[in-house]
């Protein structure tokens, strides 16, 4: 079974992906902390982190740029920090604005785009722009080359597919090839494309109202000078994602639904020819396989040891419930490993405390970065 260290060997980008609520943010922060402790200069790009996690990393006053986490905070947890941990909170709108400023041929076109209501909608609210901007920021940091490893916490899309397709959808929208015609609906283009288009436009106008259409036309006009720049950049971003130095980790939980989504997401990664590294299953109820034979007379044995029959009964019931969950988790993880044909399935146990500070992160790192033998030992220890 491969360890996370083997998977991340020689990688300069690690992207944590998965559906919402599976612990992506925590996992990303833990990976970054662990790799930094080993001596790398690492930056974690996170989106909407838990307030207390942000506080503990000293992230509260962070804007859209990387800041270094005080190594003393990590060493307080008994972890030697050989490298550097940096972190930033991604601001999608600000990143988009920066990108426009960079691509715009002059100030006037820049302001025309920034002031456009359609742009404001897209940059802040349109599903997909967060994903696109996360990639954009990743590309920017990678190009600047200041870090050994970048860890990206992807936005909480409910459907994992969105995350892969959103950037493409958004660039297509911005390119708006078929919409050139729409900028001058009565011009030559309309004649060439025929009556169908103008009727379709007419109906669309009727349905969405003229103002919106005018705003859209204005948006595409304002954007027209930047299309080529955007296309070229999008190509380079895509190339970076498919680079062998990039590694996608799928993060999921042990229940049926997150497992199904992880399988689905893995398939999408393979189809898109993106480099899959492994899967991290959070909040696993660790098994007590080897103990199953003794469980039969457990209530009696416990009653004898505790001197309290009722308590013993409750302890045994609780244990049976726990066993049922750990059996389910083991079943689901076996299924996952078989579907993904991967040897890298890293299980992080359901810890007794919520993870929202550096203490919790270093605790998680013990499992994330454990070797195969250590993992077996820890599994036995927890059980």
């Amino acid at each position, binding site marked *: 079974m491969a360890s996370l260290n083997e998977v991340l060997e020689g990688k300069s980008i690690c992207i944590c992906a998965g*559906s*919402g*609520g*599976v612990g992506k943010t925590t996992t990303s922060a833990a990976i970054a902390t662990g790799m930094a402790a080993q001596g790398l200069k690492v930056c974690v790009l996170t989106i909407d982190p*838990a307030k*207390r996690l942000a506080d503990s990393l000293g992230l509260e006053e962070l804007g859209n740029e990387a800041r270094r986490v005080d190594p003393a905070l990590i060493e307080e947890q008994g972890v030697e920090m050989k490298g550097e941990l940096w972190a930033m909170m991604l601001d999608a709108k600000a990143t988009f604005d920066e990108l426009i400023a960079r691509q715009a041929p002059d100030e006037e076109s820049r302001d025309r785009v920034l002031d456009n*209501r*359609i742009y404001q*909608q*897209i940059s802040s*609210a*349109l*599903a997909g722009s967060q994903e696109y901007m996360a990639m954009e920021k990743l590309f920017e940091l990678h190009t600047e080359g200041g870090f050994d490893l970048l860890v990206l916490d992807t936005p*909480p899309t*409910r*459907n994992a597919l969105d995350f892969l397709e959103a950037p493409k959808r958004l660039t297509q*929208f911005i390119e708006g090839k*078929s919409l050139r*015609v*729409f900028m001058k609906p009565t011009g030559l283009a309309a004649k060439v*494309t025929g009556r*169908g*288009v103008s*009727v*379709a*436009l007419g*109906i*669309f*106008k*009727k*349905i969405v*109202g*003229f*103002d*919106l259409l005018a705003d*859209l036309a204005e948006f595409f006009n304002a954007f027209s000078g930047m299309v080529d720049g955007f296309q070229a950049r999008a190509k380079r971003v895509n190339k970076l994602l498919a680079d062998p130095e990039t590694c996608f980790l799928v993060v999921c939980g042990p*229940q*049926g639904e997150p497992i199904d989504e992880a399988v689905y997401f893995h398939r999408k990664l393979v189809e898109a020819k993106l480099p899959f590294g492994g899967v991290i299953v959070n909040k696993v109820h660790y098994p*007590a396989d080897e*103990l199953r034979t*003794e469980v039969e007379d457990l209530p009696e*044995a416990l009653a004898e*040891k*505790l001197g*309290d029959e009722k*308590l013993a009964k*409750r*302890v*045994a019931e609780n*244990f049976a419930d*726990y066993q*049922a*969950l750990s059996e*389910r988790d083991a079943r689901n993880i076996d299924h996952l490993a078989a579907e993904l044909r991967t040897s890298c399935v890293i299980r992080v146990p*359901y810890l*007794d*405390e*919520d993870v*929202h500070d550096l203490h919790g992160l270093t605790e998680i790192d013990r499992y994330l970065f454990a070797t195969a033998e250590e993992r077996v030992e820890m599994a036995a220890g927890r*059980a």
Partner: protein
Amino acid sequence: MIVTGKGGVGKTTVAVALGLRAASEGKRTIVCEVAAQENASRMFAHTEVGFHEVEMEENLWSISIDPDESMREYVLLQLKVRAMRDMLFRSRIFNYLAAATPGLKELVTIGKIWELAQLDRKVKSGRKYDLVIVDAPATGHGVGFLQTPRTFASIARVGPIHSQAQTLDRFITDHEHTGTAIVALPEEMPVNESVSLERDLREEVGVAVDRVYLNGLYPERFKKEEAEKLSALAENENGAARAAARAALSEHGRARSQRQQLSRLKKGVSAPVKTLPFLFEPELDVEAARKLAGKLG
């Protein structure tokens, strides 16, 4: 009834539980999923329902609202001339515009929810429902989703879509007929998000939250003194007894920290909080939802 909350907190389970309860009271009920999700039908171990109203149990229906289908249906209802409709659907530019216009997908999805909730259904052979339950998208997208009609009404200042967006906004904010529930988990982040979600829903969307469900609460199985006894056992024993004691201590610790989160949640939100028990069950199927249905209060 709109059911919302952070990803992975059990929105679908709660939505289905609400549906089961209403159906058992004799109300003709439908559970709507958005963005082509099929989690509800999966809970019933039913084949995918797609953009169709399908009966899961007596009085309980399910639909997965696909925005493209909603758009199609909307246009069909708007345009009476058949030739025009056909041309429109064939037109690449129309499909492109429909896909590119920010928020249009969300708007037509809400439009479909509105249509399902009408006493006088717009679609042919549509029968009225007594209750429409919406399994809304996860937070982040959640507020944006419910806000779409308001945003749209302000972007499209004129035209039919302007007045329709206003109708939808009134529909969402009509507290007499439309209720909202937030689902949370007794953990740090979900509690924080639920608190800010309630505030955003109230201030930005104009929706009042009727209830917050705190899902997955562990029972308090052990007292403090008992936990001390079990700690000693975990240290001194081996094998199954140690494992059982460890599991009990873990449960005890979780149950306690969950109660701290519960009190944080109660302080943070203004809507009443109702707790739902953690179900020690391998898969959350319809029987699990049925158990919760009895505890919704």
